[in-house]
């Protein structure tokens, strides 16, 4: 098991290196760089920029060196000092901009992931057991709607209805009166009262999809012989469900964890923009629009690295839950 984990982690390193190289190439592709931006900016404010000054800036940022050296400098700063460079648009180091927003990003995404599992797994099991019942048809209908309606659209509808019909302001994570205040009990309660909407909106699509997966997996497993064998042992229906088919049916949900971390960053982007949330996604998105290349680079690199990290995470969990993966067995029957 330990050997499997170590092997799995070692295998991730070349992947991360490859992603960082690709990221670097991507952020170098568009014309212009930090220095041209800065020179333009200085010129716009009336300062004459001499050739020497420009060259000095180039040297300062290492832009006069060849590409591979610049790559090493860039990745070196990230690895050793967690320095993703400077965001031109925000006039702050990239790391600072992202870190500010990281807490909310994690909180919202984690909560909606938990909501997804808590709702989807039991409901998926239930409708599989009651296949073709009225409940099953109803849930199936609702899950199709949940998967088909985009979260951002739902967010807009809710905001519109809340504002026009009930006069309630929806959006953001804090009410205006708490927006700039330091942390207090009141601010925390205010956060909770605003948090549920993005959590639910971000969770809807995933919940609907997970119900479908769980239902399909359970229907497969419920027909297997070992369920009848378990019944022939004298176990009750609930004991059978929890100890037998669910143990296998849960596996795709665990592999689905692979998408959890990258989804933290990019999955709910549209909903976050519509709801005006102080999370990492919208900040990085606006960076892309503003050609803020260090910011964009950080975004691509983080999403890529998180994808790999969560793949490791879900592979290890899967190995814990399914011994066939642990022992590298190929099922004969």
């Amino acid at each position: 098991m330990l050997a499997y984990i170590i092997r799995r982690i070692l295998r991730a390193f070349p992947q991360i290196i490859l992603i960082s190289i690709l990221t670097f190439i991507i952020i170098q592709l568009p014309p212009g760089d930090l220095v041209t931006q800065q020179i333009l900016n200085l010129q716009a404010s009336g300062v004459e920029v001499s050739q020497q000054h420009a060259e000095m800036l180039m040297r300062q940022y290492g832009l006069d060196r060849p590409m591979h050296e610049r790559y090493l400098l860039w990745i070196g700063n990230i690895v050793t000092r967690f320095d993703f460079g400077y965001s031109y648009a925000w006039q702050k180091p990239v790391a600072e901009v992202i870190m500010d927003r990281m807490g909310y990003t994690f909180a919202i995404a984690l909560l909606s992931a938990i909501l997804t599992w808590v709702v989807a797994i039991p409901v998926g099991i239930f409708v599989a057991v009651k296949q073709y019942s009225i409940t099953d048809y109803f849930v199936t209908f609702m899950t199709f709607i949940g998967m088909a309606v985009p979260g951002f659209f739902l967010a807009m509808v809710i905001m519109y209805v809340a504002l026009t019909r009930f006069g309630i302001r929806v959006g953001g994570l804090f009410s205006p009166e708490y927006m700039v205040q330091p942390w207090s009990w009141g601010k925390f309660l205010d956060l909770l009262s605003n948090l549920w909407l993005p959590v639910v909106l971000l969770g809807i699509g995933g919940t609907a999809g997970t119900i479908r997966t769980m239902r399909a997996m359970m229907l497969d497993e419920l027909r297997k012989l070992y369920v009848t064998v378990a019944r022939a042992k004298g176990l009750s229906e609930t004991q059978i469900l929890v100890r037998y088919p669910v143990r296998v049916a849960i596996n795709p949900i665990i592999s689905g964890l692979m998408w959890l971390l990258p989804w933290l960053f990019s999955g709910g982007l549209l909903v976050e923009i519509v709801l005006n949330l102080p999370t990492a996604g919208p900040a990085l998105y606006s960076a892309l629009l503003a050609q803020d290349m260090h910011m964009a680079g950080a975004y691509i690199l983080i999403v890529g690295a998180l994808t790999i990290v969560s793949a490791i995470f879900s592979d290890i969990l899967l190995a814990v839950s399914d011994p066939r993966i642990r022992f590298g067995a190929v099922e004969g029957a």
Partner: protein
Amino acid sequence: MSGNEVIAEVKNLRTYFHVPEGVVRAVDGVDLVIKPGRTLGVVGESGCGKSVTALSLMRLVPSPGRIEGGEIIYYQSVRETSASSLSDIIDITRLKPNSREIRAIRGNHISMVFQEPMAAMLPVRTVGSQIMEAITLHQNVSHQEARERAIEMLARVNLPNPDRIVDNYPFQLSGGMRQRAVIAMALSCNPHLLIADEPTTALDVTTEAQILDLMRKLQADYNMAIMFITHNLGVIAEMADEVAVMYLGKVVEQTDIRSIFINPLHPYTQALLRSIPQLDDVMTRSGERRQLHTIKGMVPDPYTVLKGCPFHPRCPHFMSEVCDQVVPEVIEAEPDHIVRCHLYAPSPEEAQTRKEAML
């Protein structure tokens, strides 16, 4: 019948499947008697209702199947006390499926071994945990005691290194080993009756012989009744004390093992016996292969109810106006040898009167 002789009795059992195409009468009036320490063999082609009969005994008939009538009497205390009181006689058909009562019987008094050892255990849990589950469910024992009992059972079914296999996963065992583990699981609570539904069909011949040997030995050790379901008459000859031949949901002939092979009465049984490939028969001296004997025709489609004897379209002794009109009654043609066939009716006149009575 006294409780000492019989462990379970199936009387006129009818289990039907209500499907959109119609009603499938999978089991249509089956009578069986199961005795402690004896093996009842049930033979028949695929779809003759032998597995559904077995599942009915444990109330495991899958939806949309339902027991429509008849009784399955289980004499619960047949081994513990000689004097059987009324409450010890249970009609299994009257219990609710998945009720506490039937669950107390399943795995504890009556156990079942299925055809596919590869699919009978959950791949993601250890062999031991799946055996211990049955033990802790029915017996008031600690986790440690259950584990010891599981190891003991694995040793009884002749698995090597039982204390290691108990922590193995099913996919780490071969098919034969797995079927041994499944048998250990079924026997872990000392059942009075073991239902074996083609337990060796998926195994190779050498393993099959070993498993059959093992089952006979365990039966002697525990004085356990076995209901052995198979389509393989060779296996029946090796295992059974008594044989019931089923065709389309009915028992067409039932007698002891010698009579069925030496003196088969029902035309279907006779045809079945002729269909067994014989090595010296198939390969002649001249090297040409002889055609294997088959039963003409096909098993009719399950949705139509045939008038008269269900075997009449395929029967070589078909008697027009009798076999296709009158359902044959159970006839005791010889002592302890019953058959459902007009050929053995006391007289053709009587068959004729019965037919007229029905018209």
